[in-house]
């Protein structure tokens, strides 16, 4: 169990907090220290809005150690409104009715826990947009 590793990432992982290049305006998620587009090192925090569409997805039926509690679960490449793509789980969904292009929104969920006594790692997942009544 590594506490500092998760603590270090927690803010960005809870909130989908990325970076924006001050010189070429390119957005990044995951956050970077060197712009992937223009190599500038002048970057600032950028808060992604958390809405997007499924670019591709899969259903994980053989999860790695620590993730069986949600098995089976959907994982996706989510293309955010801002154009960046992030990897995340799709939660609260019907596994038989996912499709490329489906609109999704970000939520915070338990990603995994280090057993019964270790820390719980929380982070973003996406879900189908909640229908409003």
């Amino acid at each position, binding site marked *: 169990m590594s506490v500092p590793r998760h603590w270090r990432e927690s803010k960005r992982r809870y909130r989908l907090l990325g970076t924006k290049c001050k010189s070429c305006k390119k957005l990044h998620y995951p956050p970077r220290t060197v712009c992937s587009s223009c190599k500038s090192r002048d970057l600032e925090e950028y808060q992604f809005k958390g809405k997007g569409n499924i670019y591709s997805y899969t259903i994980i039926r053989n999860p790695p150690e620590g993730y069986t509690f949600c098995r089976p679960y959907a994982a996706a490449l989510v293309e955010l409104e801002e154009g960046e793509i992030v990897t995340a789980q799709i*939660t609260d969904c019907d596994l038989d009715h996912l499709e490329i292009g489906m609109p999704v929104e970000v939520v915070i969920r*338990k990603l995994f826990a280090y057993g019964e006594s270790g820390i*719980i790692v*929380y982070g973003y*997942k996406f879900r189908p947009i*909640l229908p*409003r*009544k």
Partner: protein
Amino acid sequence: MKTIKDIGIYGYGAYVPMYRIKNSDIARVWGNDPERVPVKEKSVPGPDEDACTIACEASKNALLRADISPQKLGTVWVGTESKPYAVKPTATIVAEYLGATPSINAADWEFACKAGTEALQGAIAYVGSGMAEYALAVGVDTAQGQPSDALEYTAAAGGAAFIMGPSEGSLAEYEGSYSFVTDTPDFWRRQHEHYPKHASRFTGVPAYFSHITNATKTLCNELQREPNDYDYVIFHQPNAKFPMAAAKMLGVDKEKVIPGLISPYIGNTYAGSAMLGLSAVLDVAKPDDLVLCVSYGSGAGSDAFSFKITDKIIEARERAPNVKSYIARRVGIDYAMYARYREKIRM
């Protein structure tokens, strides 16, 4: 009780997990009569949900409605009896998620089912005294009922969050509040136990009804009102029957209770219960409506609150999903999935 400054509800937000188990299914498993059950069905948190994630979404919804910067919050207080960590605050995670750190007072509150309204009294005092411009209080639980116990039929999951702020610009003006507390052990959970215990019928008259009616009457006296003067009345909802019986005792018309009565559809969300009921009322109330909300927490005590709706409610309520939307988002599961999701299967 009243505050020095004029304050009000600046934002509110709800969350209910989407899974439901029918009471008839629980009755079937334990050989009880599926017709004689306390509620129709109850909400069940998904495997990746807990009191913390529920508090986060409810709080985010409250922040959307309040339309303020999270940095302006003076408190993130989470009332719950289902803390993911026995030691380590849930509130710090919620505060970090919201972007409210580090100039913040964050803590978890515990008082059985009134932990959330206890935090709300605190938030009222914090803002009312001028210690902060805005204060967030959350009531949330992923309640556990021992398999086959009467509580298993109702112990549900959900939560609601309230941001108190200045009266000016609020969605509902705060008129006054009151807390009534005695030492009454009707329901408890000892340290290291998985499930709570209760004193059966002792939870009724000397516990729930005594505290609810005393709190309601005292607040109404202070405000020189009758309980039935309110347009909407919300009582803590351990089942579908108790709140209706309390209304009858207090002379409140049942139509005033029904809009905030959600336990028949999702069960008892413990610390979330009265606050979710209040959220459901805020989803439908009109400007100038008077709203009375009275919680109950075992151990025991009741917090009573009086609010007057403002015209800001109309616009604000649209900024986040309402309680009805969450109740309507429903996926039925059977007892086997329920047992798995609630970690009732020994691994």
